[in-house]
Structure formats: structure tokens, C-alpha cells
């Protein structure tokens, strides 16, 4: 059974790396969740547009990868701001479920806009990173990169939130949105900054995801639901909780995929989510209040 152990180890390591990808994907969503208290259900579609952006800038206009990445991050950040101004801002006072449904409409819109503009063919950069072979295991280099980017991204966001004035204002608004206006903080400006930051993180995720998966208009549906569940499981707006939840989910999916099919891995992850929601509705790492 020595063989079996190596497969298990490989699945575990790949689970950790997949967790890195999930963590990166859910980072921006979690921030918006926590600060603006709005569920951008179309977040995965912003990532999808970012992936298309990467495809066009890199493969069609032949810009260097770094330039493409910066363009893509900036572009999605602008999209985040537009989304906030057009859709979220008029609904800030409405019931949370209305906000969720409105961004659901944006999801439909972005998906079909991509279908109309780019067609339904699968596209990729034609850039395949090597697969790392270590001790008889195969580890995707691109996942390793995404894992590293998620770590760096989280540290940067953490530093931004804890060390800068704007970051302090963002955290304060997440705690009490009424009182901050009285303290001389322009709530609207903070919301715009947060939306831009969330968008930029979606763009960052897109740059790396495009190395792992082909892009097509419905790619968002394949990971969108997972990243919401990760944010909720981690405790909304709790960045560290989201990070832990991403790895738990990824391990469940990876191990489920090892013993059964990948789909069963997802089923177990969803069931785990529902059970955890009932046991710990506050999330894995509840926030101290």
C-alpha cells in the first residue's frame, strides 16, 4: 500500500495548493462582504472578464505577461467601481437580499455579454507552466504560483488595513457604518476604495486563474458558488477565517476526488457547508465583537 500513501500525500498537497487558489479567489469578495456588507454574487464573473482581458492583452495584442497582468488588475478594479456606483449604491438601504438579487442580474448580464462579445469557445493563453515532479508526485506549478500570490495578497491587504489611515477607516466602517460619518469619514469614498480594491483582487485572481483553466463565458459558475460558501463559512468579512475555510474546502474536494469522483468532492464540500452553517452560523473563526 506504499503507492496509496503517495497518492494520498499528493492529493493532500494539491488540496493545499487548490486552497491557495480558493483563498485568492475569495479574498476580494470577503473584503467587500465585510466592509460594504453586500454579496457580489457576480464576483466570479468579474474574474471571468479579467481572464478574458488577460487573453486579449497577452495573446491577441502580444503584450508581456506583466503588462497584461497590470492592465487586467486595473481594468477589473474599474469594473468593481462601476458596479458599485451603478448597482450597489442605489441599493445600499434596501434589504440585503435585494442587493444579492441585483448582483444576480449583473451575473446574467456579464455572462451573456461575454457570450455575445467573445463567443462560447474555450480560450487560453497557450502558455502552460511546467508540472513540478517531486518524489514521484505531480504538483502544478501554476497552483503553486496562485498559492504564493494568495499569501502575498492576503499579507498586503492585512498590512493595508492595519497600517494605513484609509485601512483603519475601512475596518471602522465594517464595525459601525452609521457612526463613522459623524467621525468625519466619507463613507462613499471608503466604499469606492473598497470596491476598487475588491475588483483589483478579482483581477489578480484572474491573472493566475487564466494559467490554470481555459476561459469561457460560463467559467464563473464552476467556482463562483464555492467562493461564496468559503466566505460565509469563514465568517463574513473575516479574512483569516476565509483563508482557513478555503483550505478546508479544498482538502474536502481534493480527498473526495481521490477516493471517488471530483463531483463527489464538491457534494461533500457543500454538505459540509450546510452542516457547519447549522453548527457554527458565525463561521469557522467567529469575530470577537
Amino acid at each position, binding site marked *: 500500500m506504499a503507492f496509496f500513501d503517495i497518492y494520498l500525500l499528493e492529493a493532500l498537497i494539491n488540496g493545499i495548493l487548490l486552497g491557495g487558489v480558493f483563498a485568492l479567489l475569495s479574498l476580494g469578495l470577503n473584503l467587500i462582504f465585510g466592509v460594504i456588507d453586500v454579496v457580489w454574487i457576480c464576483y466570479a464573473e468579474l474574474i471571468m472578464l479579467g481572464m478574458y482581458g488577460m487573453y486579449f492583452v497577452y495573446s491577441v495584442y502580444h503584450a508581456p505577461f506583466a503588462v497584461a497582468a497590470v492592465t487586467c488588475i486595473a481594468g477589473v478594479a474599474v469594473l468593481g467601481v462601476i458596479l458599485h456606483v451603478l448597482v450597489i449604491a442605489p441599493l445600499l438601504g434596501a434589504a440585503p437580499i435585494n442587493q444579492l*438579487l441585483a448582483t*444576480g442580474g449583473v451575473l446574467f448580464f456579464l455572462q451573456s455579454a461575454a457570450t455575445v462579445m467573445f463567443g462560447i469557445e474555450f480560450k487560453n493563453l497557450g502558455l502552460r507552466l511546467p508540472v513540478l515532479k517531486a518524489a514521484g508526485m505531480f504538483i502544478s506549478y501554476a497552483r503553486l504560483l496562485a498559492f504564493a500570490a494568495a499569501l502575498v495578497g492576503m499579507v498586503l491587504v492585512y498590512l493595508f488595513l492595519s497600517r494605513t489611515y484609509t485601512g483603519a477607516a475601512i475596518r471602522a466602517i465594517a464595525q459601525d457604518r452609521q457612526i463613522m460619518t459623524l467621525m468625519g469619514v466619507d463613507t462613499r469614498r471608503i466604499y469606492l476604495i473598497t470596491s476598487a480594491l475588491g475588483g483589483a483582487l478579482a483581477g489578480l485572481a484572474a491573472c493566475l486563474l487564466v494559467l490554470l483553466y481555459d476561459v469561457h463565458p460560463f467559467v464563473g459558475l464552476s467556482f463562483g458558488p464555492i467562493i461564496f460558501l468559503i466566505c460565509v463559512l469563514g465568517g463574513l468579512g473575516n479574512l483569516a477565517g476565509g483563508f482557513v475555510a478555503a483550505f478546508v474546502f479544498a482538502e474536502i474536494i481534493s480527498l473526495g476526488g481521490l477516493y471517488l469522483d471530483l463531483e463527489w468532492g464538491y457534494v461533500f464540500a457543500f454538505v459540509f457547508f450546510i452542516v457547519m452553517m447549522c453548527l457554527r452560523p458565525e463561521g469557522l473563526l467567529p469575530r470577537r465583537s
Partner: protein
Amino acid sequence: MRRALPFIAGAALVALPFVYHAPYPLHILVMILIWSFAYTSWSMMGRFGLVSLGHGGFMGIGAYVTALLWNHAGVSPWIGIPLALVASGVLAVVVAYPCFRFRIIGHYFALVTLALSGIVLQVITATRDWTGGSLGYTPERYQGGSLLYALQFTSKATWYLIALGVWAAGLYVWRLVDRSMMRYALEAISEDEDGAAATGVHVTAEKLKITVLSAVMTALAGALYCQYQMFISPDTVSGIAISLQMVFAVVVGGIYVSLGPTVGAVITIMLAEVLRISFGTRAVGWDNLVYGVLLVIFIIFLPKGILGSLLDLKRPRAAATLTRSPARSA
């Protein structure tokens, strides 16, 4: 005259296939009726602020359990459909009871039920040896004997009458709920759970009742869809996209009025068909593009939907008492 209107309209709808039976318009009408019924089922609980994104899952169970029992066990849909409804009801209890017990409400409830949609979709895909996975699944055509036994009809007019009957029954159930004490209990709950509990409403039980009713009706819509189309795939009867489609159509039509979901179904299906006919394959994606924009605009400007807002315009005085409802949560 006002009292007679539903009967006149009903008689006209029943008489329609005997007078006019071009297959294509009848097909569109059957689709509208089946989806109207599904949307009505969704808004049974949606109107009380219980926004579920799991109804794609219930619909998938209705369709797949019926078809699987027929193909693999030879069970007639007359037994298979009730079994599917029971399965859907049981699933609704299993997921909803803990949610209500632990007070998972609002967008948390929506996200838990979103996971439910995901589960059903993935299970259907994962058991591809049985269900055909994402390639879809076809109930076998019944060879010989009565077609009634297999609930398979080739005539569109027959299906039209069946769908009409089920749709009307759905509206009747809506009316029953609308006139029951349950409605007041649920409205109280959606305003303030603690307040409702304090006045003696059994919050968990009331919410559970309406959820099971809604889930069972949605499963029936799925089973009907399967028997009519004779082809189902995870993407057409289950999953998150279908759940969102239900929410969308109901919000556009009007969530608080009985015919709102029907209006929503008429608008969405006609829109898709008109685009498909006038633009052909170039129209791929355009219908959803329009839906998406409409959904956003409706939620921002007309949260009561088209029919709800029209009725308000007609009866400004009645509207004053109704305007409190959308503020609650649509």
C-alpha cells in the same frame, strides 16, 4: 362582472386547443404554463421573504426521480411523481429545518439553499452511469398499451390541458394560502421573528410548512417538464442558473400578486422566443443580457414587479396598505 372574469378567462383557456391547434404556439403555451407553475411555487415562499436559491434542486429531483424510476424500475409516473414529490419534501425538511431552527435568515438562507442547488447538480453529474450526467437523460418511450399509464402523450393539446390544470391548481393553492391564517403568521415572521414568536406564532413550524409546500410544488413542475419534454439535463432542470431564473422571472412579474409569476414567465419566455426567431443563432446570449439588465432595473426601481406596480396604479388607495410589503424584502 369582476367575479365572472376568472371563469370567462378560464373557459377561454380551456377552449383554446379545440379551436386553435398549431403545434408551435401550443408548445410555447405549455412551456409558459409549466414554468409559470414553477415560478408560482417559488414565490409561495419568496413572497414571505424566504428567498431560496435551492429550487433548481427541487425541480431537478422532481424530474430525475420520476424519469429514473420509470427507466430503471419500470415504475409508472403515476407512482413515480408522488415518490419524487415526497423525496423533494423530505429534502426540504432536512435542509430547511436546521436553517429555521438556528435562525439562518435573509441572504444566509439564500446561500445555504444555493449550496443545495449545487449539491443536486453535482450529484446528478456524478452519478452519470445512471443519470447520463451532463449529457442529459431521456425517459424511455412506452411501447404498447395505454399511454396514460406512462403519462406520455404526443398531442400538444393534451399537454396543454394538463399544464393548464396544474397551473390553475397552483393559483388555487396560492389563493388558499393567501386567505389562511398561515399568511398572516408568515407576514408577521418576515417582519420580525421575535415579535411573531411573542404573539404565539410557531415560527419554525410555519416556515417549514410553506417551504415544504413550495418544494413539493416545484418538484411537480420538474416532473411535468420531464414528461412533456422527454429530455432533461442538469442544466435545464436543476442548478444555480435555474434557481436564479426563477427568482428573476418572479421579481419581474411581481412577487406579491398571484398572477405575478405567470406574467414573469410570459415575459421571459416570449422575450427569449422573439429574440430567437428574429435573430436566430446570433441571438445566443442576448436574451440573458436583457434579463440581467431588467433584473437590476426592477430591483432598483420596481421591486414589486410589473403586475404589482400596475395594480398599484389602478388602485391608489389599496396601494397605500400594500406599500409596506416590498420594504420588507423582495
